[in-house]
């Protein structure tokens, strides 16, 4: 089975169809994905800022890592699961989407980044565990990690803006005149005459 056939098979699967046909499942899965990523990024940032010597500089790095990283991994598992569920609903489109590919590449690179840490500064951690910051390689890894995770979130959001199946503008409810609300006349509202498509 080639990749195109596989993607179509995924999209046609019972699970994907069920999520697509439901009014509630996709929004709920996506919300859970956002919750998970908030925790992934939040907890990773705590460790990265410690390595950079910006915050929690008095605490043992190993102690913090053992306290926090299990939550990072749990949250990452949640985002990977919910992300996969969203992917299968429209697999061929996501697969060919630039931002999806960039995000997957960045995820892989952040894995490599983590591996580099383990093989360099991580090996001598007992020597700098209580130092205010990590050695230079550790700092570089931490800074790269922060940049990559912010980019991953950005790419993830862009996937939603560029693959939306509901890219048709929905008019505001009848009877609601927003210009009245804003105390303006329609002509000087300064808004765009052709509003951008309403995306996810």
């Amino acid at each position, binding site marked *: 089975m080639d990749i195109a056939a596989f993607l179509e098979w995924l999209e046609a699967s019972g699970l994907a169809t069920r999520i697509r046909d439901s009014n509630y499942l996709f929004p709920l899965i996506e919300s859970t994905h956002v*919750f998970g990523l908030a925790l992934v990024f939040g907890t990773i940032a705590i460790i990265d800022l410690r390595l950079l010597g910006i915050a929690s500089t008095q605490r043992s790095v190993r102690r913090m890592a053992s306290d926090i990283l299990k939550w990072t991994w749990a949250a990452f598992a949640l985002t990977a699961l919910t992300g996969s569920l969203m992917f299968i609903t429209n697999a061929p489109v996501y697969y060919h989407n630039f931002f999806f590919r960039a995000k997957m590449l960045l995820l892989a690179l952040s894995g490599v980044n983590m591996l580099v840490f383990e093989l360099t500064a991580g090996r001598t951690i007992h020597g700098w565990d209580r130092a205010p910051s990590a050695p230079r390689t550790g700092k570089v890894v931490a800074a790269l990690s922060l940049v990559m995770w912010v980019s991953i979130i950005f790419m993830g959001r862009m996937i939603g803006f560029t693959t939306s199946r509901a890219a048709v503008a929905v*008019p505001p409810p009848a009877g609601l005149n927003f210009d009245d609300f804003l105390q303006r006349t329609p002509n000087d509202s300064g808004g765009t005459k052709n509003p951008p498509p309403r995306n996810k």
Partner: protein
Amino acid sequence: MGSVFMIYLRILGWAGMDQTLRQTTIRFGPWLTGGLSLMLVTGILMVIGEPVRELVTFSFWLKMFLVAVSTLIAAAFQITLRKHEQLWEETLVNRKSIKGLAIATFLIWVCIIILGRLIAYDHVWGPWSPATKA
């Protein structure tokens, strides 16, 4: 979210037990305030950008209500902790009711995240959503 999560984990005794509660809030409190402020600014910019899309939704208003509630709780917690530090460290933090309250307020933050995403899918509320009354 990371900051608020770490404070809850410390109250629950699931992380950061080498630090006192006060040390934990000194570390994460300012980041929590900073994160909230950043989201307030970017949130306002998004509302200005697409006011109808944001304001004519049930999710948005419920979210704003919950943001107000949880911000008040967070502020009240930090103020009482500063005033009654010893009481918090020795007694209150070990109480089951306080741990229950921590879980409940954490769930409010989870709801805020979910509602934020649901602004784009307000139809899930059916007749409760003003956007469906077209």
